[in-house]
């Protein structure tokens, strides 16, 4: 177990310097270079053509839709689209790589020089510089057999399924990120989450981290702080942490690496340039392969493929179709909904912005939508240990709000109706009907109950008639009790005063 330095102390001594490589699997119908289905669940080695298997004689052909998706993503990242981009071969031997080269874009990516605005939980806005976004192909899937852990170490043999081979990827590479300081872990999480929002908004990827649709490799190094007036210390040696497959892990892995590297450096040690593997279970990283001169990928332009030269018309068409950037959208919504900073922060942190948008679209007021989602629904989700979005739909919430607004339900009744909806009893209206939860709005029934209450309490009746209107409270309480709470208290009060004068002496 590696020695870790206290996080705050590490930040006092060192400045964290970050960099991310995020791989996005595009949700095209077919693969990057073959017409095999872009789907890799199911029976091994069935979604493959000679191309994906790297059979002798087979040749790649670029999926035009993948190119369009990559351009859209590049534009959404604020990148310039290269007038000419090219595929190259990255040569290295590995059993999951059928041809023993990966077709990727090395020197000439389709998109370059962009930036992404990221909002941190503390409200800080951060601009992450994007170096490039390039197209490439995924590799097959290895299963290691015979080792104790199912990991590569100690395995007797490995099995290869090439269904994933050739799945289209866009790799987004940031420039070096300075200035994150103590927010580095949160920035990492917010960055990946923003990328996820962008690709989901574009509709170009499922972006499910747990399924590997979105994978993040996190580069981190520490730079020793120097006293003011002195020149800055040189950049430290970086490590690249792989296998980080949840937003929470991204944050934890960065924090862990900062603390680990700080402890080593503080004791006069050196950081090895290497890949490190994140272990979700233990919350640690472990050393992987050191970078060496064996990493000579012998890149050269892929002779089987031709340059990609997107027309201005295509780029403008795709630009016009771009959805709003997440950060801009957030700012717009906050203003439109008239939320305070705190209210909006709260909503963002709950991860339920899209649900509120959809609920408002279905007719609810923003305030009510926010109140229900971040209140009762989030509480129930928390108690049940599930995702709030799995409990109810935005439409159901909007219907519930409408029932409150038109006086059919009180807040208290509405909570009971929500409980019924969550229990799967149907739409809010169906729950109201089935459970008989609606506010009694039939004056006849109310008058009967009021008359009975007044007549059973003649002293109270007398006081009301004397003008001591506050005495009506006792009658109202009795009526509400008789109506099992399903009455509008204000209406009851109105009727009580009316009946007190109307009743015969």
């Amino acid at each position: 177990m590696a020695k870790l330095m206290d996080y705050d102390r590490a930040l006092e001594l060192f400045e964290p310097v970050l960099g991310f490589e995020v791989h996005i699997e595009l949700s095209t119908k077919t693969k990057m270079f073959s017409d095999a289905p872009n789907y890799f669940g199911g029976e091994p080695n069935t979604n493959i053509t000679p191309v994906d298997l790297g059979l002798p004689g087979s040749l790649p052909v670029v999926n035009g839709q993948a190119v369009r998706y990559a351009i859209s993503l590049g534009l959404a990242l604020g990148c310039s689209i290269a007038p000419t981009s090219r595929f190259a071969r990255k040569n290295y031997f590995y059993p999951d790589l059928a041809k023993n080269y990966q077709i990727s874009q090395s020197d000439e990516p389709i998109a370059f020089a962009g930036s992404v605005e990221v909002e941190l939980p503390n409200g800080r806005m951060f601009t992450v510089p994007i170096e490039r976004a390039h197209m490439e192909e995924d590799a097959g899937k290895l299963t290691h057999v015979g080792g104790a852990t199912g990991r590569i170490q100690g395995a007797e043999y490995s099995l290869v399924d090439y269904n994933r081979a050739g799945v289209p990827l866009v790799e987004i590479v940031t420039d070096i990120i300075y200035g994150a300081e103590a927010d580095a872990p949160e920035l990492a999480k917010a960055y990946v989450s923003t990328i996820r929002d962008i690709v989901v908004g574009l509709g170009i990827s499922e972006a499910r981290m747990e399924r590997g649709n979105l994978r993040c490799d996190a580069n981190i190094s520490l730079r020793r702080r120097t006293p003011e007036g002195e020149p800055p210390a040189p950049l430290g040696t970086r490590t690249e942490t792989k296998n980080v497959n949840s937003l929470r892990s991204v944050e934890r892995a960065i924090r862990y690496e900062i603390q680990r590297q700080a402890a080593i450096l503080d004791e006069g040690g050196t950081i090895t340039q290497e890949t490190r593997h994140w272990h979700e279970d233990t919350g640690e990283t472990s050393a992987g392969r050191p970078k060496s001169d064996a990493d000579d990928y012998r890149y050269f332009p892929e002779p089987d493929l031709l340059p990609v030269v997107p027309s201005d018309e295509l780029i403008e068409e795709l630009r016009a179709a771009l959805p709003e950037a997440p950060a801009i959208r957030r700012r717009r919504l906050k203003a439109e909904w008239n939320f305070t900073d705190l209210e909006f922060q709260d909503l963002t942190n709950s991860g339920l912005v899209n649900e509120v948008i959809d609920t408002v679209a279905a007719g609810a007021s923003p305030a009510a939508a926010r109140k229900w989602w971040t209140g009762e629904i989030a509480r129930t989700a928390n108690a049940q240990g599930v995702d709030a979005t799995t409990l109810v739909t935005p439409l159901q919430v909007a219907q519930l709000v409408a029932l409150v607004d038109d006086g059919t339900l009180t807040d208290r009744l509405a909570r009971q109706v929500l409980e019924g909806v969550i229990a799967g009893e149907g739409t809010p209206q169906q729950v109201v009907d089935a459970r008989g939860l609606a506010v009694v709005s039939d004056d006849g029934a109310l008058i009967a109950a009021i008359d009975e209450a007044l007549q059973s309490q003649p002293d109270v009746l007398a006081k009301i008639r004397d003008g001591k209107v506050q005495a009506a409270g006792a009658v109202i309480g009795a009526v509400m009790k008789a109506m099992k709470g399903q009455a509008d208290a204000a209406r009851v009060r109105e009727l009580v005063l009316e009946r007190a004068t109307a009743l015969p002496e």
Partner: protein
Amino acid sequence: MTNDLTRLTADALATKLAAGDISSVEATQAHLDRIAAVEGAVHAFLHVASDSALAEAADIDRRRAAGEQLHPLAGVPIAIKDVIVTKGMPTTSGSKILEGWVPPYDATVMTKLRAAGLVSLGKTNMDEFAMGSSTEHSAYGPTHNPWDLERIPGGSGGGSAAAVAAFEAPFALGSDTGGSIRQPAHVTGTVGLKPTYGGVSRYGAIALASSLDQIGPVSRTVLDSALLHDVIGGHDPRDSTSLTDVWPSFAEAVRNADVAGLRIGVIKELQGDGFQPGVMERFREALALLEGAGAIITEVELPSVEHAIAAYYLIMPAEASSNLAKFDSVRFGLRVNPKGGGTVEDVMSATREQGFGAETKRRIILGTYALSAGYYDAYYGSAQKVRTLVQRDFAAAFANADVLVSPTAPTTAFKLGEKTGDPLSMYLNDIATIPANLAGIPGISVPAGLAAEDGLPVGIQFLAPAREDARLYGVAAALEALLEEKWGHTLLSQAPDLSSSEMNATDEGAV
């Protein structure tokens, strides 16, 4: 005796088949018999598909009898260079590493041959992965030149050229990366054409160098090559480098052959020094005949040709080193487990050590070097620039000439074993053919006669601008007619009759 059928051209066979004079089974059987008679001496084939060939032939005969409208070449037998992936026939590319591999798919050219009803006789021998000019680098032993069994049949497509020259097949498919169709044609007295790059699909041709490889026809007559080219050519969406051009009928170009007014540019750099006198003699004679028929002979310069071989021997091995990485013992082919076990890396390294021959390993290492960190710009990068210079030279030359001409190779067939110890001298032999591959332009080699000093065939090469393959068929057919008129016979009618010399065949292992 059915043996006569093997002396017919593909065109003549097609005519007899269409007329019902012969059946495809008869034509196929005649060629299988010929193969059985001469293969011991020639060794042109790595796989003879007797059963499937006869079955395919019988199917064509049945369909013809049923009145089905068939392609004009339906039922004509053909030989396939083993670089081409064939469903149901083993495909090795001349390498031990692929021994016994039966591909699960057909190359596009195979799909086209099958659709036209051509009958595949089998797979022809070649230098391993098409790396060579002599077919001596085949892992399965060399092919022998039917004109002189102790000599090379050229390479890498020595098997296809020898099969055609030895009347084992009327025509064949070849592939040409630096001359592998044209140089074997030159040394065997046959015709071979490398199409414009992108003119014929590369899908299913086991890649040597992707930016240089082209599949093309090999035959005894210019018309037969054109007929075959008409079948295999055209756009293929499975090959990104495939041209979308609508091609004219090449057979039509042969039938309309006329050189009157045609400007023929003699390449200054591809004659003289290093070119055998007998080769130059036949070359000049051919030019004189063409001039007599109305062609205008001029001289053109291609100054960058001097660097073409250097550029080629960087680009080709660089691309090859990457293309051949897929032979790793995981998904197909040979696996060698090192003594005492080892990791998958060790298994891959042992497999590639044992599965590849010396020339393949040499070129992989050379190509790996040319691409490796720190050397890329100087070697691969510079070679790509030379390629630009060669293209510019051709563009300038074609401004003054409709076609260019040179001997196809500096010498006639050399002896088996003569150059295997000196790779560089073998490489230099490709001087005349390589420039066309670098520039992507089409080139054809046609027989020009026999060299006086050794009685061996000599070829003449014509080059045309990209997409002008039809021009080559025209000029080649015109020359063929002029020469045959002069000789009073075809060149191949003068080749030794191997069926009688079969017993004296050079022992394969003796070379």
